[in-house]
């Protein structure tokens, strides 16, 4: 009997007890890397040299190898680093101890900590966080806390901040095939901040919103990197009775709601599956004697492509009987994923097998082209009862043995409900096993780096630069009539001070807000180099608008002109467009002139007639006179004529 699947789109998150926290990683806009003097942000596809390393687990506090560490060691990867001499030095390759920490990066992290209302540390201590996947050649990431605690208002509630740290970025993965993983080192050691929230979000959408809000807080400093890969997030998800699972490296905010929902459902399905296993009388002991059996001989004459490929490569087929699991391996844990895919994830990562199908089961053997008769022989060979399942892995003999052992281990973990692990994002918005979740044991002091005092003077200098929090700016900007998206854009825009100054000088906050928070972006997207316009020219144009010398509607056109000829003063730009001031008498004369030469409207409806006239009139006053003024003068003239 299949366990009913819960559609992630219709799940009742409150009932499921969804809890979600996020860790946001944001690259900082610094010239150099965090612990050496290599340039930051110099990406390339070129390399001058390769270095090969292996990672070895170190003993943890309890004298045991940390779970993740042990797993990574099982995988025994040859790690190749590609080095571009321009972007990497001997520090990143762990051949030179760290230099003094990049103060610019610490300062930006402190600035963001202040913006989030964190308690600022008295002294900054660099510690090492172990990563054995090879993404950092030292085997650990150097990281340090700048602030602890903090709050972020979101829709009437407060989202707690746990901590904020500044840390080194990792390598970029190039490929991961079997036992060989390749990394590029250009990104390695670029400074990042990591903001960790409490699990205060309770729906998938809230998680995405909070990530976006924190991202805006960071961007509002103007000192963080933008663009692809500059910001990545880990999302921690649990449901009631489940386990905190980390989804690592989510590249885009838009993916978050789907991923969170998917993980919530996966946990619920695993919990239901445990209930079913217990109901069937299965226990961890049931699987104590499960051993892999080499069944390669069965596939020697099999015509299926994958079996042929495996045998040709000298691989073996290892099968294992899983008592009582016949109906359970096909339990859906995601829209397109079953529990068998969970087994596949473990096999892929831990046994380093990446040839599909990763795991063959009773449910998939037929479709994979294995003859039913062959599978029946296999089941008989394993002495399967009708209720038993079979899982089959294939590949190099050591890896295939490792794979079946891992399959059994994962099945036993079903009794934990949701095993602790980190998950990676797969295409299609689902996740797959990445590694066992590491504990706090993997953190230890970096004896290579001295502590750095965060003085009151330093903080005072930063506080002087402090801006109004974005969430307050959002409210203020919406209060002047700007739509939310425009307000949110303007609030973190470098043009905000310009807007503020112009508004203080009497400019219309809404009209100018729309210009700077919306039109500006659109013009830049069209390729106009608005950055070239001197600030003085902008200020003069906005002052002209504030003084009624020019209408706001003409400003986009003037910005275009100014971008093309940035040396022209504002007044000249106005004159070139013929935007000289106009008295009311001049305007009235002009209206009469235009009306004289107009064909009569065909409609007899007075409202339509007026629309026709105004439509013809307005272009003559573009940027020089407000629509209401033209309308009033028109009305007066028509009244006079009548």
């Amino acid at each position, binding site marked *: 009997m299949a366990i009913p699947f819960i559609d992630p789109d219709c799940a009742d998150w409150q009932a499921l007890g969804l809890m979600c926290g996020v860790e946001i990683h944001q690259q900082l806009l610094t010239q150099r890397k965090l612990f050496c003097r290599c340039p930051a942000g110099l990406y390339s596809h070129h390399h001058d040299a390769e270095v090969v390393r292996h990672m070895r687990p170190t003993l943890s506090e309890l004298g045991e190898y940390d779970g993740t560490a042990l797993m990574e060691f099982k995988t025994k990867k040859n790690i190749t680093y590609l080095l571009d001499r321009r972007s990497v030095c001997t520090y990143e390759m762990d051949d030179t*101890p760290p230099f003094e920490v990049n103060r610019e990066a610490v300062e930006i992290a402190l600035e963001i900590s202040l913006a989030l209302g964190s308690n600022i540390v008295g002294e900054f201590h660099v*510690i090492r966080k172990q990563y054995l996947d090879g993404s950092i050649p030292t085997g650990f990431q150097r990281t340090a806390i700048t602030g602890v605690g903090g709050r972020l208002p979101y829709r009437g509630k407060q989202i707690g901040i746990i901590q904020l740290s500044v840390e080194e970025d990792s390598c970029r993965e190039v490929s991961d095939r079997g036992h060989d993983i390749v990394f590029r080192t250009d990104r390695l050691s670029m400074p990042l901040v990591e903001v960790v929230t409490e699990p205060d979000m309770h729906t998938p959408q809230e998680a995405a919103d909070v990530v976006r809000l924190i991202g805006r807080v960071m961007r509002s400093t103007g000192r963080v990197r933008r663009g692809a890969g500059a910001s990545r997030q880990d999302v921690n998800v649990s449901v009631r009775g489940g386990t905190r699972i980390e989804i690592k490296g989510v590249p885009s905010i838009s993916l978050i709601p789907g991923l969170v929902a998917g993980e919530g459902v996966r946990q619920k399905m695993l919990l239901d599956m445990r209930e079913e296993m217990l109901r069937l009388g299965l226990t961890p002991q049931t699987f104590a004697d499960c051993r892999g059996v080499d069944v390669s001989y069965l596939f020697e004459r099999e015509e299926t492509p994958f079996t042929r490929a495996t045998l040709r490569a000298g691989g073996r087929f290892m099968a294992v009987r899983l008592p009582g699991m016949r109906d359970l391996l096909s339990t859906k844990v995601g829209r397109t994923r079953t529990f068998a895919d969970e087994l596949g994830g473990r096999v892929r990562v831990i046994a380093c097998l990446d040839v599909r199908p990763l795991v063959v089961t009773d449910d998939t053997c037929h479709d994979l082209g294995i003859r039913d008769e062959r599978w029946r022989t296999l089941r008989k060979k394993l002495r399967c009862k009708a209720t038993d399942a079979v899982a089959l892995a294939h590949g190099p003999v050591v890896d295939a043995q490792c794979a079946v052992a891992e399959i059994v281990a994962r099945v036993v973990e079903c009794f934990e409900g949701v095993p602790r692990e980190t998950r990676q994002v797969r295409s299609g918005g689902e996740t797959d096993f990445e590694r066992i979740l590491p504990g*706090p044991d993997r953190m230890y002091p970096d004896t290579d780096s001295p502590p750095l005092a965060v003085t009151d003077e330093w903080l005072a200098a930063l506080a002087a630069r402090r801006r109004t929090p974005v969430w307050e700016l959002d409210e203020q900007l919406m209060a002047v009539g700007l739509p939310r998206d425009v307000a949110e854009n303007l609030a973190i825009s470098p043009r905000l001070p310009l807007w503020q100054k112009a508004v203080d000088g009497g400019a219309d906050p809404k009209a100018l807000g729309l210009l700077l928070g919306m039109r500006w972006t659109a013009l830049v997207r069209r390729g106009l180099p608005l950055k070239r316009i001197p600030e003085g020219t902008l200020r003069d144009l906005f002052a002209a608008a504030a003084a009624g010398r020019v209408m706001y509607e003409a400003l986009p056109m003037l910005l275009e002109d100014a971008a093309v000829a940035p040396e022209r003063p504002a007044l000249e730009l106005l004159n070139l467009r013929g935007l000289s001031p106009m008295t009311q008498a001049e305007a009235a004369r002009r209206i009469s002139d235009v009306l004289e030469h107009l064909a009569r409207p065909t409609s007899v409806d007075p409202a339509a007639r007026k629309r026709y006239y105004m439509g013809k009139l307005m272009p003559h006053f573009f940027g020089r006179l407000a629509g209401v003024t033209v309308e009033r003068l028109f009305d007066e003239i028509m009244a006079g004529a009548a």
Partner: protein
Amino acid sequence: MSNDEFKGYRGEALSVLKEYAAPVWSDVTIASARGEFKGIILPRSETDDEHHIVLKMASGYNVGVRACDVQAITSHARKEAHYKIPEKEFPYDPQKSKVVLLGTGGTIASRLDYRTGAVIPAFSPGELFGAVPELADICNIETKKLYAVFSENIGPDHWMGTAAEIFKAIEGGADGVIVGHGTDTMHYTSAALSFMCQNLPVPVVLVGSQRSSDRPSSDAALNLRHAATAACMGPISEVMVCMFGPTSDEYGLLHRGTRVRKMHSSYRSTFRTLGDRPLAKVWPGKVEPLTEDFVRRDRNRKCTLMNKFEEKVAILYYYPNMQPDIVEALIDNGYKGIVIAGTGLGHVNKPLYPALRKAHEKGIHMFMTVQTLWGYAQMFVYDTGRDIMSFGVVPAANILPEVAYVKLGWILGQTQDPEEVRRLMLQPVNHEITEREPIDGYLVMQGGLPEIDSFMKSVRR
């Protein structure tokens, strides 16, 4: 409460901790002018300032709280932890050779106290097996801890003591000896042991690590496996240094103890053979000699122990404008031997001449080496050289300055007779002076050259 309970804290921070009766390892909440911080109070490094208290937070991170900001400290519990390396019995295999590992204090196998960052050495066979279980695939190991000193504190006493222990181990039937050693002065020790333990029947291998073994990317475990291989099954019965060949985890190199030098302050592949080829490449379980010219393993050879040393020997590293008072100081302080590291072919400036002549008259034994490290002291080429020789300074061919220092101290420990000293100094014990420099003995490649660029791209370093 004693100050020991406030380990490492001084001044302001100490008085704040005492005021709130919060010794190290207390699990506390600190209310401070910068907000609240929770964690376990850690011991403080003695070299850090006296104005901060270090906390380990639940997340595993450490932070410092300013003592002057503290408003209150609430203690919840005390969580002291003791760290031990798991001991597993080193499995004995009668089929495998016996290797004796002598420890001098390097961190070849160690683990970290995860809270304080202090390194705890692993040393007993059980601890070693716990840390590097692959060693059991190579040999049976017995260990003996001789010293626990950092590399920079190693000196003649340690050389003499270690030499005696090597002798003892060989007498005791070891098939090879490993000496665990800090890397900074490993090449001094390897030279000293080369002179003190001659006619070795089995290999003596010095090994260390450039990245301590508490790091996942450490070179320690692989170096140890290489060293065990060289010691138990390698064919070369000499004193050798066994460290990484390239910076990659590819293979180790065995360097002759008298021709090896640490050449980079931090690289893994820091040890290089100078003026010759290294002896062999080594992998776990396999040694591949790079030369035929080495002493072969022979269990019947009788080792001779000559562990004497005269401490009043100095290296004089010449620099332009060196003043004669430096030499005078050595004379006045009763030095018996001076190794000069001269410029070029072995030169010093004229103002030193009278002082050198005086030293010679006082019976100080002086030898010239080259600070270029590669090449020979050849003092007949220029007048300067001939002048200097006339004051009794003897050119010591292509012996490395550090090796010359060790050798002169070793010789002066045995004899003071000028002719005998000179004879022994110039007669090589084991390749510290070579008759010829092979054409590939000097290879310092220059980055940026197209051929080196393509080499860099094609070879994993």
